[in-house]
């Protein structure tokens, strides 16, 4: 993999650095943040940046830097879980649907169409209002909402692979659908799947943060980017960093994902395995 990704360009490198930076900071947050992210200190409320509080404090006197560092943990965890499950399920189903075709294809794709026609945020709000806002509820809700889109994209890529001779050769040997999908088709759409993963992840992290912003995701006083923006937007003029901090963090993560997916697309778009360029 390392060899295939070499030469994906500076955009790709910057993207990876942004992603890894965000992930690393979120992982290390409990050890590197200067204050407890939920500890309030009414004496130090609504302060601007200072030596003690680099990004200032919010209306409860909580350290904004500590909250921003910790604020990604929830969103990134949900994003990782939801995207991984959605892309894995979507890739498998997409290949299977493309390979089998016929009525199976028709049925699955009409279900996909139906799910895709429901506005994402509405669907999530309904699920959360009914089942509560536990992390796994949100993960599964995001999986249900995003898997169809992955199915559609992967199916498109798999359909062109399906008609290639090595798939025909496998069919002529009498291989079953499972091995054909896993051995012959899936490895050859892995470039599409990888790009799709990066794109989906950026949408999912935004979606999760939107939910938190609307009050349906993380619960106060937990530190979370979306929630922080919601809490502090009224004090935007007083302590701008309380809003800008989480926004900048979120934006850098999303931009990182986009740059990465762009670089991956450029690097893998021409299938290197096909052309023989190493």
């Amino acid at each position, binding site marked *: 993999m390392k060899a295939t990704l070499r030469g994906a360009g500076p955009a790709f490198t910057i993207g990876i650095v942004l992603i890894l930076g965000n992930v690393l900071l979120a992982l290390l947050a409990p050890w590197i943040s200067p204050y407890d992210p939920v500890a309030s200190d009414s004496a130090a409320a609504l302060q601007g940046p200072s030596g003690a509080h680099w990004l200032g404090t919010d209306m409860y006197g909580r350290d904004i830097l500590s909250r921003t560092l910790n604020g990604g943990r929830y969103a990134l965890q949900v994003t990782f879980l939801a995207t991984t499950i959605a892309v894995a399920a979507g890739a498998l189903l997409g290949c299977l649907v493309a390979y089998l075709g016929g009525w199976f294809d028709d049925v699955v794709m009409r279900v996909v169409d139906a799910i895709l026609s429901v506005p994402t945020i509405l669907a999530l709000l309904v699920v959360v209002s009914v089942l509560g806002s536990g992390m796994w509820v949100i993960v599964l809700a995001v999986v249900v909402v995003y898997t169809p889109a992955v199915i559609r994209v992967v199916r498109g890529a798999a359909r062109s692979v399906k008609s*290639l*001779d*090595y798939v*025909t*050769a*496998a*069919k*002529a*040997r*009498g*291989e079953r659908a499972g091995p054909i999908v896993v*051995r*012959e088709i899936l*490895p*050859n759409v*892995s470039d599409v799947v990888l790009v799709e993963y990066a794109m989906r992840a950026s949408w999912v992290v935004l979606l999760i943060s939107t939910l938190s912003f609307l009050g349906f995701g993380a619960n106060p006083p937990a530190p979370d980017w979306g929630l922080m923006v919601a809490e502090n937007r009224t004090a935007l003029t007083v302590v701008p960093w309380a809003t800008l901090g989480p926004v900048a963090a979120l934006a850098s993560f999303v931009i990182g994902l986009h740059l990465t997916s762009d670089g991956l697309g450029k690097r893998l778009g021409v*299938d*290197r*395995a*096909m*052309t*023989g360029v190493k």
Partner: protein
Amino acid sequence: MSIETGLAGDMEPVAATGDAVRVEKLSISYRAGRALVPVATEVSFAIAAGQTFGLVGESGSGKSTVARTLLAKLRAGSSITGGRVLVAGQDVFGLDPARLRALRGGTVALVAQNAGQSLTPSMRVGTQIHEALTSHGLRADRADVLRALDQVRLPNVKDLARRYPHELSGGQQQRVGIAMAIAARPSVLVLDEPTTALDVVTQAAVLRLVKDLSRELQTATLIVSHDLGVVSGMADQVAVMRHGRILESRPTAKLFADPEHEYTRQLLRDVPTLGARSRAEAVAPVAGGGTNQDPEPPSGTGNQGSDVLLSCENVSISYHASGPPAVDSVDLEIRRGETLAIVGESGSGKSTLAWSLAGLTAATSGTMRVHGDTGTGGDLARPVARRSRELRQLVQLIFQNADTSLNPRRSVAAAIRRPLRLFGTVARARERGRVEELLTEVGLPASFGKRLPAQLSGGQRQRVGIARALAAAPELIIADEITTALDVSVQADILELLSGLQKSHGLSTLFISHDLAVVADVADRVMVMKNGRLLEVGDVADVFSGPNHPYTASLLAAVLEPGDLELPQSPAEEQDWIDDNPGGWLEPSPGHLIRTWKGAGNR
């Protein structure tokens, strides 16, 4: 000025300035990382107006790269490292953009390999010709467009001009491409593998057309091809290229009669030929078709002895319930150890029949029975999913395009191991050894098992394809145009390998090809198909010496062989026979059967 396109009709001005095209010590390299890789080295040639120059060579010889410099075209990353290209006395790489546009299509026109892809799919044919004319500042009304189409001898030009490219056949598309190329009366015509995608009959017609047109318009023509027969029939002078260098460049007759360079001799040796035996008689079809019916059963299945491996009767295959079947009541029989070839142009149903035997397309009706050596037998009319493991093992397929028949993400060893595991041909512990044996058997080092398909050449990939088929320990190999994508020297090696393996393993082969010369080389018996119907079947010697069905005769007559300095005489553009349905069979010699037909005049 060179850009004046009116020159074409009148030879004088060009002759005065010397050759229409001069390539002088042209060297081209492309940049790969930090290194400069030479693509062409000190290539020189000249073409006078009215002359045709041929560039032959195998893939990677740089012939196309050199040809396209006449249009001042270089691939991205390539650059000229020496020499120059003069068209009508002008260095084409020194032209400003406006003059370059006038050069391309105006002074120099290109006919590429696949005209179907070079036409705009969403634009009517007439509109495209109109555009080709007006973009070079020529007056163009409807009559001019029709004249351009008429010039390339397309039928019903008024109707045709209103059609879209996909509504034309491959040969017609190629003609439209030529019509567009010559629309602006170019003084130089570049033909880059102009007929590689066409069947022999269409090829002969298209080449004849180009030759006549270039003579009429006095163009300087450059033809690039891997096909020595095509170049031999078209060019006045031929240059043989290899690794970017011209090895020898001489008048066509001399080059083919007495090649100087060892590589040229090797190439000529590797080209399969029909041989002298067939030419004279083949063009004389059986007289009185349609009258003299023979009640003999169709495919000569008289001897149903134990030496018959596969027998098919009345096989029809339809893709759609309505519409003509792709394969229409075909009988065939393959004896043990025999190579049966099916010959036909694209759309003849030959591949459909083969795929149906492999179980990939179900036959609509008819029986296909196989009688294996070890008593395994069964009905091949069943699709592969409903065949027993033994039956699937018995029939193995080798594909036309080795590039796409191997999974690019799996190693060579994995590709060969899969059928071993699936069919349980050898015990698991022996798999590794068996893979190495198979690789050695197809002439590859055992160490190639670790490689990915992309790290192999085309010929090596095809060898892996053969090894994969052998791994199943089959009795019948279906080889579907397996050498079409390969260079002649590689083709010769692969065919030799296949016939060697066939003998040592006692395999029977169904060999599908459009190349009559290859078939004459490898097959014991031949079947000729057109439009899903079997027209003729017999021993290779009988079929190639005639008498023949008129269709077979036209195929044989259209074959171009190296050393033939003339194109086949006016190949029949329109089919001059109609199918006699249901029709009977003629049997001019035992085992040689020809479907009866009616003359087109009797309609």
